[in-house]
Structures are given as C-alpha cells and as structure tokens.
C-alpha cells in the first residue's frame, strides 16, 4: 500500500494521464477540461446573450460528468490514498517561498496564504483568486484549450497550433512566477 500512499513518480503519472486522453478518444470524445467552462456558461444561460454559447450543451453532459468525477477523485485521493508526506520540493524553492512570506511550502497542496478560508477575511487573497480565475477562463477559451487540450492532446498529435499555445502558456507562466509573484509577495 505504501507505493499508493506515497506521491507517485513522474514516470508513472505521465503515462497515466496519457491513458485518460486515450480512453476518451476511444469513447469518441476528447480530453479538454476547459471546455467544461464553456458548457457551464451555456447551461447557465449565456446562450441567450452570446452566439458563442449557442450550442446544445446537453450534448456535452459527458464532459460535466468528468468534472464531477474529478471532484470525487480529488476527494478520494486526499482522504483515502494519501499520507502526510510533504511535497519533495527543491530546497531553493522552499527558501525562496519562505522569503516571500509563505510559511510551509509543500506541506499542503496550495499555500494557505492564498487559499485557506481564514485568508478570505482579507481582500488580497480574494482579489488574487478572482484575477487568476478570470485569466484562466478567458485565456483558455481565447487559445481554445488548456493543458489537457493543447499540451497533452495537441502536442501528442504534433499540431503546430498547440505548440504555439504551449509556448504562450510558458510566456505567461514565466512572467507571473518570475516577475509578478515577487512583486505581489514582497516582504
């Protein structure tokens, strides 16, 4: 059981993610998590406002079912398949984050300084969560895909557009992590 409870190595995890893509293609569907956001917008009534959301969202219920499954999977993994071993981060990463004011880098999946419910009593974490969500929602639809659709499916099928999108992911990610986060968490 130990090898299940410990974090899984990258060379096991990567192929398992590819298996998710493969099984969805076998079922005649695609691996694209950000599409679920578009489907939910349509289901919530955005189809009455913009043509972009005018499609039969009920055809996409399979995708919403995956979302539900993913939530359940997160619950099962954290409740029953995990021990409390902290994430084995690079010591340099830990020092850097501590200098930025993060108390226990790697002890949890996400930093309490941004995500804990206590943090939601101050305005800064809430603004960060909202801006982050807006960027992810807007950016994935503009680029018509996220990590699953472009980085995994698109690059596996050698599509140039996905390579451009993934280069974009890194331009944005590198700017945020290396230049903007240090400004936001200046101590």
């Amino acid at each position, binding site marked *: 059981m130990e090898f299940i409870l410990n974090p899984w190595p*990258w*060379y*096991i*995890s990567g192929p398992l993610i*590819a298996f998710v*893509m493969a099984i*969805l*293609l*076998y*079922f*005649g569907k*695609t691996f694209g998590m950000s599409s679920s956001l*578009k489907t939910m917008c349509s289901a919530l009534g955005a189809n009455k406002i913009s043509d*972009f*959301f005018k499609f039969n969202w009920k055809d996409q219920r*399979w995708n919403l*079912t995956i979302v*539900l*499954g*993913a*939530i*359940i*999977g*997160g619950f099962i993994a954290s409740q029953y398949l995990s021990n409390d071993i902290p994430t084995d981060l690079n010591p*340099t*990463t830990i020092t850097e*984050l501590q200098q930025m004011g993060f108390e226990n880098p790697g002890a949890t*999946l*996400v930093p309490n300084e*941004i995500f804990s419910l206590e943090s939601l009593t101050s305005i800064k974490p809430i603004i*960060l969560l909202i801006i982050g*969500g*807006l*960027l*992810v*929602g*807007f*950016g994935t639809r503009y680029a018509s895909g*996220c*990590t*699953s659709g*472009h980085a995994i*499916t698109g*690059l*596996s*099928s050698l*599509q140039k*557009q996905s390579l*451009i*999108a993934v280069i*974009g992911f*890194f*331009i*944005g*990610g*590198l*700017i*945020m992590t*290396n230049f903007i*986060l240090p400004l936001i968490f200046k101590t």
Partner: protein
Amino acid sequence: MKYLKFLLVGIFFGIVLVKSEAVSWFRIYEMFRFQSFHMYGIIGTAIATGLLFLQISKRKHLKNIIGEQIDAPKKEEGFIRFIVGGSIFGLGWALIGACPGPMYILLGTGIYSMIIVIIAALLGTFIYGILKSKLPH
C-alpha cells in the same frame, strides 16, 4: 448508465493528478522557476505516451466505440489566439497554480476557496464569448 464510464474516467483523472502532485501550487511555481524536473517529467512522458498511442492508432487504423478512426481533433487555424490566449492562461495558471482540471480536483480535496476561482473562470469564459468578434485571432 452511459455516463458511468465518464464518471470513472473523471475519478481516475482526479486521483492521478493529486497523487502526481500536478495539482500542487508549489509544483507549478517550481516548474516556472526551472527548479525541478518533476512537472516536465509528467508532461513529457504524457506527451510521449500519447504520441505513441496516436501513431499506433493511425498505423493500425484503430477504431473508437462508434466505429470511427481514432484521432485527435484538429485545432483551428491562427497564430495570435494561441500565443496571446496561451499567455493569458499562463499568467493565471502560475498565479493560482491550477489549470481547469486541477481547479475542480482541488475543490474535491477540500480547498473550498477554489469555488471563487471556478466562478471567476466561468466569468472569464463568458467575457471571451462576448468579446470574441472584436478580438484578433
């Protein structure tokens, strides 16, 4: 229960992403600081395995359950949408440490503030839908 298989795929996906630590904000930070191979290993082996699967499918003419040739969907043409849209997503990914899949998965692990992120992401998707015709693609 034609949806049961998708529920199971979702559960499997959620478990794999938690156990691989791909949902960890700290792992994403570390990746964009080039301080660990972990995330590159995950994405790299996922692409390599996916590539192998799609090449075999093509050569052996493997069919999906509705009898069509297995192939990845073709992306739209364009350049600006991919580089600009991708960069905008990248900014958000590095800020909240979660792409769309992990947003849901983390909610399941008990990070309830992800609800705020998901609502904002829905709003972001909606704003794109409204502005689409005015944006360069």
